[in-house]
């Protein structure tokens, strides 16, 4: 605990480690995407069938809550999924505390979420994580395909929000310890994206686009 709260460690996680995390995230993601696309060139039968129009058509349907048959079949899951992903991305990007850091470090600024709303959204992310956890434990078809890695990535996502929430409300642990662990978990999550199944953040656009293209351009059918 002492070490965690030390100035040196704080300086490390909030300084070089941030760089490392972003670089790993950016280059890791770029590498994975590059690998897949160059691999697809070799597989030959994918890229020639990509269609911008039908990619967008498919993505638009699936990015719209209740825009597909399956979203409509699972209303709760749909609401939770969309809320979760929305809050997951919007909260950290527009959080006041993060924006201050951007301003200090790079003199750049953008729109900021009202603090109360951001706090609520953080809570939502955590509740959604809880929902996903329960789903994994209870729903037969989900439980059957759940691996330890699924709990692991859920935890990776949960922790930055959880520690951020605690830090904001200054609960349980000293603020500094919380802020350091928050930063650390945030960095871990960033770095995990390209190398865990959190990579669906990178690839889902491609998989959706390809299926949308095949269904739309080749097979003249809907894929929603």
């Amino acid at each position, binding site marked *: 605990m002492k070490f965690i709260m030390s100035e040196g460690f704080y300086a490390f996680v909030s300084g070089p480690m941030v760089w490392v995390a972003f670089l790993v995230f950016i280059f890791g993601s770029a590498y994975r995407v590059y690998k897949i696309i160059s691999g697809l060139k070799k597989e*030959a*039968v994918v890229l*020639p069938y990509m269609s911008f129009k039908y990619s967008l058509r498919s993505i638009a349907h699936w990015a719209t809550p209740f825009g597909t048959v399956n979203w409509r079949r699972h209303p709760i899951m749909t609401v939770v999924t969309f809320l979760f992903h929305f809050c997951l991305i919007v909260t950290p990007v527009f959080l006041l505390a993060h924006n201050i850091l951007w301003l200090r470090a790079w003199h750049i600024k953008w729109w900021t979420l009202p603090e109360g709303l951001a706090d609520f959204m953080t809570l939502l992310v955590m509740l959604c994580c809880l929902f996903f956890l329960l789903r994994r434990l209870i729903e037969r078809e989900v439980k059957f395909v759940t691996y330890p890695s699924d709990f692991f990535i859920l935890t990776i996502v949960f922790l930055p929000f959880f520690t951020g929430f605690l830090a904001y409300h200054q609960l349980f642990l000293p603020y500094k310890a919380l802020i350091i662990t928050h930063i650390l978990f945030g960095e871990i999550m960033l770095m995990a994206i390209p190398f865990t199944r959190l990579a669906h953040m990178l690839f889902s656009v491609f998989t959706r686009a390809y299926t949308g293209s095949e269904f739309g*351009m*080749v097979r003249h059918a809907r894929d929603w």
Partner: protein
Amino acid sequence: MEATSKLLEQVQPISQQSVPSSSYKEALPATPKKAGDSFDWDTRKKLIANTDEWKSKFSEVRPFNVSGDGEKIGSVVQTNEETFTVCLNGKQWEETYEKVWTLKFKNDGKAVCLVMKDNAWTVAVDGLQWKEKFDYAWNLQIALNGRDIGINIKKDDHYGVCLDDKPWTQGFADVRNLFISPDGTMSAASVAIKGLAEADIFGFQKGVWTVAVDGTPWDKNFVNVWGLAFSPDSRHVAAETRINLYDYAIVVDGILWPQTFKCVCEPRFSTKNNVIAPVKIPQGWTLAMDGKPIWKTFVQLWPPKFSPDGKKIAAVVAPDFGRWTIAVDGIPWKQTFSDTVLDPVFSPDSKRVAAIAKESKDPMNMGSSLHSIKGNDRWTIVVDGIPWEQDFDMIWDPVFSPDGSMVAAKAEINGKYCVVANGKAGKKMFDTLWSPVFSPGGDKLLIRGIQDGKYYRYVLPREEI
């Protein structure tokens, strides 16, 4: 194997044919390979038959076919209920049959077809039946020499081949397809040496297929045998085989190449009896000669052709996925086509190559069963990498003039047919047309076609097409 070589040795070599036989192509209404010196090259226009009259004479007239010299036109006709015969230049054969099928012409102008009478099938040549009769006969082929006739046969539940009225002595559980040697003296086919019980997958995988040459099977069996080829000297036979479910190889006179591949296509012999075949290796398709790759790899490579002088090889290739062209000696033409390119044709002097190509503006649009989609499925001829400017609803194999300076082909425009020469569509339109034939001097073209219910034979100076 030994038996085969013995058999092969008995055959006297004949003058070498320029292009190895890909005999399945021969099964269609015959287009003469060589223009005969004996043809009438002087009569400019000759009315051979009023084919419309046939329609009033017979209750049914089936599609026409014409002889190589254009002097004869024939059709299978129905004389009265349930009997058929052949009508040649307006005169019907005396004999009638229960069925008549695949009318073709030999180089000597004799009409050949498959006929069934009293439930027995055989071949009839100018109305005379072969003495041999079969339970079934099909796949009538005339050898590259235009003289010898072969068919697939079934008799007493055994399958075989009959060449010039001489059936194979040995019957098989199955025989598929038929390849006649260029000199017309020998026949070969893939054969199943025994039948299998229903769903006997293990028996099949042990290998029951092989090649039989003149009815004598090779002593080695394979899982599959396809795509046979005779050597130009008619002494050797090569085939593609699958030796287990996964490994493919080329087999020559019963002896396998030592190399196996992920897949292979039909082999071809060079004039020096080297064997080449497209083979699939991990990097893609390439051309192998006697087992060793000699070209770079392509996405696809179809069976190649040797030039008449035997020095060049041309083949259809796909340099990229969904792009087709011709490669000559491994070097693809620059221009590629979206839909397909068909077998290359060499000029007689071996210097030029032409091929049919098909292009679509919007290839994803498969369109309609009854109508063409504008800009799609356009056929044309490509000569030495440069496509003709005009495209057509359909086009037939290009024909070179003897000196190679002119390329002509039969083409379809709005349901009518014309001869196209060096990219320029001829003015004469036909309801039915056969491929043009160049005179031996190359200065004239023989055009055989039906206009307004009459079959004409034209001989036109090449400039007048």
